């Protein structure tokens, strides 16, 4: 039975590795400028984790196969070198492995979070609420009007609580239910939540950031490929969480300008 168990572990390990080796399952194609660093990091980690996984499972299977059952006349033996060799191997091999991953990982992280957006980045505001995203563009004046939480009204389609009668900056603001951005143009995303915690997750853009009620957060990114992608919420926000999504269209500059004009006309 021990041998059957060893073979089972072996088979499970190999079956588990096949989809990874054949690349059957992988993240969606990256369409951002910063995503390559994340993908490289993922791929390095996949190698290191894959080797650790397969080698440990195979060693476990081999020892179970080889050392099971009472073998009369044979004495129990100790692993050559005892615990010291294994501890040293764990500290050195795994230590180097994880610190290398950690340090390279910092680089990928820093490229996103520790570099400021360029001066010409296009500001887009996103507001998360149960269970929809709303987006705001500043309009020709380039500035967003102030938000008045007490005036937020879904019934009157005033999702941002704008006071267009009194606030000059709000008059040309464009609020939309879909997000569109120009391709190859840096975007400065200004994030806030109107109620509970939500998240802004776009796998294709390698962006994932929670909304924190009471806190204004910023992200910046550049999309490199025209297309239509989905923004989904990944932070449990209530009964409609599964259905909280919005489309993100990456358009050519001309198409984006046209889209924005059309949206402005609809306000």
């Amino acid at each position, binding site marked *: 039975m021990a041998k059957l168990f060893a073979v089972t572990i072996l088979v499970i390990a190999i079956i588990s590795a096949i989809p990874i080796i054949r690349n059957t*399952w992988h993240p969606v194609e990256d369409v951002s400028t910063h995503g390559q660093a994340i993908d490289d990091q993922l791929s390095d980690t996949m190698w290191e984790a894959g080797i650790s996984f397969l080698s440990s499972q195979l060693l476990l299977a081999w020892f179970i196969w080889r*050392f099971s059952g009472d073998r009369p006349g044979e004495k*129990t033996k100790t692993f050559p070198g005892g615990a010291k060799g294994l501890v040293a191997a764990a500290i050195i091999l795994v230590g180097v492995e994880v610190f290398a991953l950690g340090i390279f990982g910092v680089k*990928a992280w820093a490229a996103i979070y520790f570099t400021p957006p360029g001066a010409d980045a296009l500001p887009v505001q996103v507001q998360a609420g149960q269970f929809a995203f709303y987006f705001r563009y500043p309009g020709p004046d380039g500035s967003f009007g102030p938000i008045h*939480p007490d005036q937020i009204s879904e019934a009157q389609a005033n999702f941002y609580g704008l006071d267009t009668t009194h606030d000059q900056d709000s008059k040309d603001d464009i609020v939309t239910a879909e997000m569109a951005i120009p391709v190859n143009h840096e975007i400065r995303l200004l994030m806030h939540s109107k109620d*509970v915690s939500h998240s802004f997750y776009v796998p294709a853009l390698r962006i994932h950031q929670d909304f924190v009620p*009471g806190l204004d957060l910023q992200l910046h990114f550049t999309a490199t490929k025209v297309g239509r992608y989905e923004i989904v919420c990944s932070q449990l926000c209530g009964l409609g969480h*599964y259905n909280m999504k919005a489309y993100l269209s990456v358009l050519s500059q001309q198409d984006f300008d046209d889209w924005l004009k059309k949206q402005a006309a609809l306000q």
Partner: protein
Amino acid sequence: MHDSAHAAAHHGPPTSFIRKHVFSLDHKVIGKQYYGLGLVAVFIGMVLSWLMRIHLGWTNAAIPGLHLLSKTGAPGDVMTPEYYLQVMTMHATFMVFFVLTVAPFAAFGNFFIPIHTGAEDMPFPHFNMMSFWTTFVAFCVMLLSFFVGDGPTLGGWTQYAPLSALGPVAGPGQGSGVIIWATSIGIFCVGQLFGALNFIPNILDLRCKGMSMWRLPLPTWAWFITSCMGLTSFSVLMPAVVLLILDHVAGTSFFVPSNLVINDQLQPHSGGSTLLWQHLFWFFGHPEVYIAIVPGMGIVSHVLITNMRKPMLSHRVMVYSMGALAVLSYMVYGHHMFVSGMNPVSSILFSFPTLLITIPSTIIVLIWIGSLYGAKIRINAASLFALGFISLFITGGVSGFFLAQPSIQILLHATYFVVAHFHFTMAIAAIFGIFSGTYFWFPKMWGRMMNDTLGKIHFWLSFIGVYAIFMPMHYLGLAGNVRRYQSFVVDYMQPLIGVHQFITIAALFTGAVQLIFIYNFIHSRFWGEPAPDNPWQGTSLEWSIPSPPPHDNFGGRHVVVYHDPYQYGVQSSTGDYVMQDSPEKVNTVNEEP
């Protein structure tokens, strides 16, 4: 220290049914009570997971009779989106608190710590009894939430604020459901503190003559380390849930900031911090993961050593590594919050200790595997579950490499990859540890043998089943499948529904397999073969006393310990082992300085 072992914990044998079986002061009865509670809770948790899985595979499927559980949650026997979340929250809550904390730690720990240390009982038997009954009250309160108001909370076992703190306006179950949840968890924390306050002094002060700390068996070391974690982490969760309740009932705003608008209504809160809850919760939450898994490591080591007929490569390295896991567990909690909006510099700072924790974990795995070298492994249900534990822990461990890195969490945070990771480690591996301990210690706890053939069948089907359930979840996560969704209406997730259906079938199958265990457990409990004192030729003190042990464990005998706990592979009058309390001299080749 040693003489107090008999003085401090002495209390006479009970005579009435109530004192013997209900409000018992005997650590062994309390241990069994905890075990029973764990069994009931795991059954509830498993049925809830079935409901979830059926709904995820076939969202509009009617589950016959479900409306009996909740008329509003399952009209026409089809689960509503909110009821799915309520069921999910309760699945996690019952499993994490009332199974994974209760069974490997409180149940086995209660039964075996006094025996392993050579004591008659715990130092504070009344506190010990209160520990169980407090936990039982917490369990009943949690169950109550199914039947009160609009049902249990839907906020997940993590109960992130402000969703959890705003009250009924935030959704079904967010009023009375959250208050009941928080009350139950608060009571649970008190129960576990009572438990830890018994375990620690027992291990430090009630050891019998000759029982130095290094002579304690590995599970007792694991329970000691776990108790220290319990003491310091439950004491953070408890005030946190009190603050949460105050946000509901006292008009405070600990976790709710200003200017939140729900249903076009400005909420009457100001000045709170949503991230504060996450910090408090995960300061408890990450050590809790180790509270679930470290006892399993100790139990599995104990079972393996007995079945390998040789000690671990190093007893001390195992202890140091488990200790290192415990210490590091407080420094890594921020990896749950990489994309939470906390300062991105903190993400980097939390990432390194998280990566560092792979070192003690790897050492433990390598010591297990290295110890198998040259062994004479006996294959039985207990050892199969122990070996299965190692395989599962390796699988769960390597996915930690990914989740320790903030940049990769941009892709994988809150996806099924995380679900796969924590189920392999803290859930399934820990449950394999419980099964291993059960098959191993059942003869001692209940005085009868379990059916080993049924145990092996239970193992084989469970082992293959859990891999079939959780391995594909890694691939779902890589494809961006977000967790905590009741159905998959997002375009790119729709092609993944087939995988969810496969997982559902595997989960129903694996769940059904557990009936074999339940049958074996109940049948063996009443009709199993009577167990000898030492059925596995073990060396630690539990095997030197009758099965089941008498009321005061050692029958008034003053135990003296002469050896390290695991004297196997030696020449002695009994065979290839020498018991800890045997004065027989052995060539202690394995004794460390």
